[in-house]
């Protein structure tokens, strides 16, 4: 769709339609200018707030609300004018100015009073609710963050789950936040179930077999097929429940630790943990509990054949024998801890336990014959796990390491996997179809590894287009990579005001003008501008003498909003020029997309200023 390409979706349409506007409005006032808010103490220890309302704007009386430390409190308002417009119904509004009071009783020993209000520009626009926090000791007014009692209705209702039915308009209580994430849950559970089944193929689960068969064997009398199914199921369910409990703890601590877990140090440490786990999988050392413990548990196993006993045994053996499967379990726990969702984490690990136990149920019901023989292929399973852990380690590192190094690491990993499978095939005698599959995977992996490693040499990392690196698919990938790299390397990226202050300081010392490019990953227009304008030779020449700063708004959070507010930026792409003495050069500002010549003339303006 061609129009999509050309849409500068922050291009603000102002004067251009002024002629056809209803009330002749020339633009939208920012809410804080339309409704100027002020707070002062009353004689009696309360707080009086007042608003100066710009002509053509009004506030709603019934939307003035107050809360203290999160609890709603009474706020006294004065009668307003009744809107007699048939479009409005019986609504009281204020024009010009108004005032409201919170009595001293409501403010006893409290720290913050939050006042929320809402209004419109006549015939033009209605603003969302505005919340101001008043620091009670100093009466300093600031923008309220996430006020719980009176924010935007959508946020509030979505979080509190008001479910309306046409029948009785009652409120439901469904947990929406859990459900909001529900889509990923099923796939996660299946993945962990599969992971569990895979784990059950490792020797780690085998100590459980004597425990369980001991339990089944000691049951008095003849054991029916149904009874042994019930008992082994109870055993396995309890085992899964034990893992589920572990998941709860992991997710809980994850919730608190999540921020910490994202720091480069934590990521490095965890990647190291994965590498250690991988080495253990390759047989460098064993992570296992003393034999005597598992033996003792098997001894005392199942003196009675009750379901409860079987369940207790399952729960216990999961926790005691569990450490044998520590490496994969730790991996699962770290993953769950990183996502930080209790329900998710717990269910995922429950599924893991279930997967591990399914073969045990089969064993319990059908006897030892059906379980695969332990043997060399079990070693292979462990080795494959080892590679999976190494891949996880590299994946985690990708958040902190430069792309070039990442490409090299992935390349080496795939080369190792390829080498492993190929040597597996070469050593095998006689060779079966399984070996043929192995060598196929091995060769593919080798080719992929070589491509990635070659890409690393050329500073290209296109995991889904590995061939770009070896020059088979050059046109698109390398072209854009070159262009973007050359450009972005000159820009220093900032995400908050501190970064900007630093840049201004640097520019002042160097006597340079700063160009701040407000940009974001999701802003297609910005990307097009980088490719079509910034990459031009003439533009690059003109860039000399400027300090180039990219304000990255990709994570649209409080920091980036502050940054935008400082320069009244509506959204990316916007380019702001700041002279060496720290003033914005207003006439050079660029909003929306711009042609090369347009951009150069703005640059010239910025230089002259």
């Amino acid at each position, binding site marked *: 769709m061609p129009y999509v390409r050309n849409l500068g979706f922050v291009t603000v349409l102002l004067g251009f339609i002024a002629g056809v506007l209803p009330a002749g409005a020339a633009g939208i006032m920012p809410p804080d200018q339309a409704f100027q808010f002020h707070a002062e103490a009353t004689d009696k220890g309360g707080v009086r707030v007042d608003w100066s309302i710009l002509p053509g704007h009004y506030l709603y009386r019934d939307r003035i609300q107050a809360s203290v430390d999160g609890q709603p409190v009474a706020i006294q308002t004065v009668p307003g004018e009744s809107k007699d417009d048939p479009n*409005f119904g019986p609504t009281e509004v204020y024009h010009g100015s108004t005032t409201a009071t919170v009595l001293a009783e409501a403010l006893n020993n409290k720290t913050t009073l939050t006042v929320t209000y809402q209004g419109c520009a006549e015939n033009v626009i209605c603003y969302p609710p505005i919340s101001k926090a008043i620091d009670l000791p100093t009466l300093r007014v600031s923008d309220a963050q996430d006020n719980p009692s009176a924010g935007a209705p959508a946020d509030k209702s979505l979080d509190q789950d008001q479910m309306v*039915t046409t029948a009785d308009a009652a409120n439901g209580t*469904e947990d929406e936040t859990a459900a909001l994430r529900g889509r990923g849950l099923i796939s996660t559970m299946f993945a962990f179930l599969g992971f569990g089944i895979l784990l059950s193929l490792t020797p780690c689960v085998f100590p459980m077999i004597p425990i369980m068969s001991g339990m089944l064997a000691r049951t008095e009398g003849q054991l029916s097929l149904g009874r042994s199914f019930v008992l082994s199921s109870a055993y396995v369910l309890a085992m899964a429940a034990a893992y589920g409990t572990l998941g709860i703890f992991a997710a809980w601590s994850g919730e608190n630790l999540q921020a910490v877990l994202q720091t480069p140090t934590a990521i490095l440490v965890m990647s190291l943990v994965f590498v250690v786990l991988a080495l253990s999988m390759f047989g460098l050392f064993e992570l296992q509990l003393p034999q005597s413990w598992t033996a003792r548990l098997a001894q005392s196993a199942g003196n009675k054949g009750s379901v409860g006993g079987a369940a207790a045994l399952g729960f216990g053996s999961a926790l005691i024998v569990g450490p044998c499967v520590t490496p994969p379990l730790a991996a699962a726990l770290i993953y769950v801890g990183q996502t930080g969702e209790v329900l998710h984490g717990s269910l995922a690990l429950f599924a893991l336990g279930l997967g591990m136990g399914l073969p045990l149920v089969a064993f319990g019901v059908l006897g030892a014959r059906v379980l695969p023989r332990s043997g060399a292929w079990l070693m292979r399973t462990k080795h494959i796990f080892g590679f999976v852990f190494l891949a996880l380690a590299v994946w985690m590192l990708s958040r902190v390491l430069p792309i070039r190094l990442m490409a090299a690491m992935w390349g080496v990993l795939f080369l190792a996997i390829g080498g492993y499978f190929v040597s597996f095939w070469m050593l095998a005698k006689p060779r079966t*179809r399984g*070996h043929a599959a192995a060598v196929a995977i091995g060769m593919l992996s080798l080719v992929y590894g070589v491509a990635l490693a070659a890409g690393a040499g050329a500073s290209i990392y296109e995991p889904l287009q590995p061939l770009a690196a070896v020059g088979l698919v050059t046109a698109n990938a390398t072209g854009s990579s070159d262009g973007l790299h050359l450009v972005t390397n000159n820009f220093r990226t900032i995400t908050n005001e501190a970064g900007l202050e630093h840049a201004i300081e640097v520019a002042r010392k160097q006597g340079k003008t700063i160009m701040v490019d407000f940009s974001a990953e999701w802003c297609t227009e910005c990307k097009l501008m980088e490719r079509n304008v910034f990459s031009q030779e003439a533009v690059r020449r003109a860039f000399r003498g400027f300090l180039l700063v990219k304000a990255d708004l990709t994570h649209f959070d409080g920091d980036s909003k502050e940054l935008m507010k400082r320069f009244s930026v509506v959204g990316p792409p916007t380019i702001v020029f700041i002279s060496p003495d720290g003033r914005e050069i207003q006439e050079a500002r660029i909003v929306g997309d711009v042609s090369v010549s347009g951009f150069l003339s703005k640059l010239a303006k910025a230089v002259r200023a």
Partner: protein
Amino acid sequence: MTDNISRAQFLRLAALSATILVLPSAALADENEITRNMIFNDPESPTGGNPNGDLTIVDFFDYNCPYCKGAAKPLEKVVKADGNIRLVYKDWPILHPTSIIGARLALGAKYQGKYLPVHHALMNIDGYGVEQEKMIEATRNAGVDAAQLDADMTAHADDIARLVKRNLNIADAIGLQGTPGFLVGPFKVNQALNEQGFVRVVADARARQKTPQSK
């Protein structure tokens, strides 16, 4: 020494390993990431006008916004008269606690193909601070199957909540100050327009689409 591994086992291992490798990245994909495609082509956002129109207008509105209601009729009129405009409805409930209820009623009716009748019925209730009961009454009278709507609102509660959250994020990201807001081709119009205003901005948007990179 490696004879014990069977082909079936091998394939199973390979498949599971692949699942595990893919899992983390899939789980981390952010559904709230804002793309142009999401704004114009969110498959869950109701649309009107000509689906193949050469110009798309995205309408951000609230069922408690008097000026949205005032602008809705001229907008629909211009879209109909023009015949070549695609209209995307973004429920953006920000003004009043009942706004979200209106959005849920209308978006719930989408599942029985009745979004537009309910949308128009809710937009036809004048004023600000519309009571929940009034909205439900208007919805019933718009010719929906009430039992079906109840069932759909329950069954699709998450889909609706997610869509509304997406709309909130989009409006935030494109810097809308309040309701109503319109994206008309390349232009953002953050205010109510009359019929003449819509005709003019549509014409200008078309003119601009024909001359891409000029400024």
